[in-house]
């Protein structure tokens, strides 16, 4: 893997641990910003049981590389690393984890927000929200 996206992985089930940050850290970094998406216990008034993620894995990585390059062209960051779940993620579990190192915090925050915005509308991953009334595939950046 080359360029600003130094690490990407998809993992079965919820993301655990704290190893992503070490992949972007360095003596050139003034900060590391991390984002974790976590599964909420309620949605549209119903109790959520779990999420089920499906992906088109080859295109996920290709699209994330494109998004990372675009974000790095707009925001002066050093390195980023991303992990995303596939399969079942229970309530409270982590489904996506992003770490960005930059010299300055304003660019790190802006880059993390932009990366997540683009991921949500472009990266071919889908979640089915399973609640007490069944399951529904979500879409349109939910």
């Amino acid at each position, binding site marked *: 893997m080359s360029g600003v996206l130094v690490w990407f992985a998809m993992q079965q089930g919820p993301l655990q641990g704290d190893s992503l940050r070490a992949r972007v850290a360095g003596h050139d970094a003034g900060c590391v910003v991390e984002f974790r998406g976590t599964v909420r216990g309620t949605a549209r008034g119903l109790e959520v049981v779990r999420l089920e*993620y*499906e992906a*088109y894995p080859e*295109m996920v990585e*290709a699209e994330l590389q494109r998004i990372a390059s675009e974000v790095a062209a707009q925001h002066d960051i050093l390195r980023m690393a991303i992990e995303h779940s596939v399969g079942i993620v229970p309530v409270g579990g982590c489904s996506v984890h992003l770490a960005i190192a930059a010299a300055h915090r304003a660019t790190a925050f802006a880059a993390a927000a932009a990366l*997540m915005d683009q991921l949500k509308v472009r990266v*071919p991953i*889908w979640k089915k929200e399973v609640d007490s009334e069944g399951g529904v595939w979500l*879409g349109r950046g939910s």
Partner: protein
Amino acid sequence: MHISLFAGLAEAAGQRSLDLDPPLPVTAQELLERLRLSFPELPWDGVRLAMDQTYVANDAPLRANAELALIPPVSGG
């Protein structure tokens, strides 16, 4: 042409791919229109076409042996 399906589209179709052999050349938009006519029961709203792991423009010509996939509205994160 062999076209992969995912998520709600695969679930509604009851299969992970579709096969269709339109006369060539064919653009992304033309293929999507043919697919809609051939499989009207599928949830087509917001579906995009990807060729070789890249979203393609409506007027892009498709290669017959390309890796094609229908991408319903995504919801990663």
